[in-house]
């Protein structure tokens, strides 16, 4: 079992194997993303019932919540990939980490932006120093820091290692940051949705949200793979298999 896992791990570490394997998965992943997002959007926008208190503005939840979830998860993807790259010196992990940073930052920005717009009709202001929004803003800062560090090194190897360390330090810090922000902002709305409290939301509202969350996860994976594939070509451009690839292109 262990040797099997190790073999698989080793194979996964080969950029070439990753490139060709994901080439086969991509169409399916794209299909899942498209179906989930389109169905979820139409369902959420047109068919889900109106919220009793917030009216139709609550429909922003179908973007806001999945984007925020992925923003958070994306940071851990980045940090875990960075750790694997640091510990096992796996190049593919470095490429995944590098690709994950701008995607996570963009999703964090989406989460912040939709949160702000949602805030206007709900709280009467675009920006409220609420715990979740503030934590999200700090998460964006953390992403930007990793990206800035990544881009300021001329050597790609150094850039990857340095930003992996920063991502790991950030990961260790995130719970502390969240706790401290929670503690400070007494103006704190309870989290709108947690999986454990799913029942508190009307099932007709919740089902499209679930679909959107699945869609966002698929979307994230898709974009991450696409970016990693570009990184692979860039880093492996002197190898024969990329040369052959160019011949086909």
């Amino acid at each position: 079992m262990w040797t099997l896992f190790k073999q698989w791990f080793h194979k996964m570490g080969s950029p070439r194997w990753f490139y060709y394997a994901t080439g086969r998965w991509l169409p399916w992943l794209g299909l899942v993303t498209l179906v989930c997002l389109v169905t979820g959007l139409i369902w959420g926008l047109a068919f889900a019932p109106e919220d009793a208190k917030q009216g139709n503005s609550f429909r922003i939840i179908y973007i806001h919540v999945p984007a925020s979830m992925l923003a958070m998860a994306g940071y851990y993807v980045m940090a875990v990939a960075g750790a694997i790259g640091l510990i096992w010196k796996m190049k593919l992990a470095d490429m995944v980490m590098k690709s994950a940073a701008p995607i996570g930052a963009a999703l964090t920005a989406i989460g912040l932006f939709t949160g702000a717009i949602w805030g206007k009709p709900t709280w009467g202001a675009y920006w409220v120093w609420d715990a979740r929004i503030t934590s999200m803003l700090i998460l964006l800062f953390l992403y930007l820091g990793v990206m800035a560090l990544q881009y300021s090194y001329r050597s790609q190897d150094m850039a990857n290692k340095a930003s992996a360390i920063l991502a790991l330090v950030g990961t260790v810090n995130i719970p502390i940051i969240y706790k401290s922000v929670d503690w400070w902002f007494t103006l704190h709305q309870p989290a709108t949705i947690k999986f454990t409290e799913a029942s508190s939301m009307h099932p007709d509202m919740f089902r499209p949200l679930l679909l959107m969350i699945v869609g966002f996860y698929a979307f994230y994976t898709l974009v991450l793979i696409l970016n990693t594939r570009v990184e692979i070509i860039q880093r492996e451009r002197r190898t024969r298999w990329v040369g052959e690839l160019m011949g086909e292109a």
Partner: protein
Amino acid sequence: MQQFDSLQAFLSMGGHGPYVWSAYLVSLTVMAWLLLRPVIKRRQLLIALKKQQQREAMFGQTGH
């Protein structure tokens, strides 16, 4: 079941239309950019690499 009686009602979202639609529009634009960026980058990279290949074929090894 459809929540809105008409397209008009759907677009206005009971007065919350501007908020909902701007949030969706901006988010989807960013997501489209996320999706297109690697595709464009890949194409540019392949073109650049091909050019370099041709250069090397014409002038011999130019080093790295």
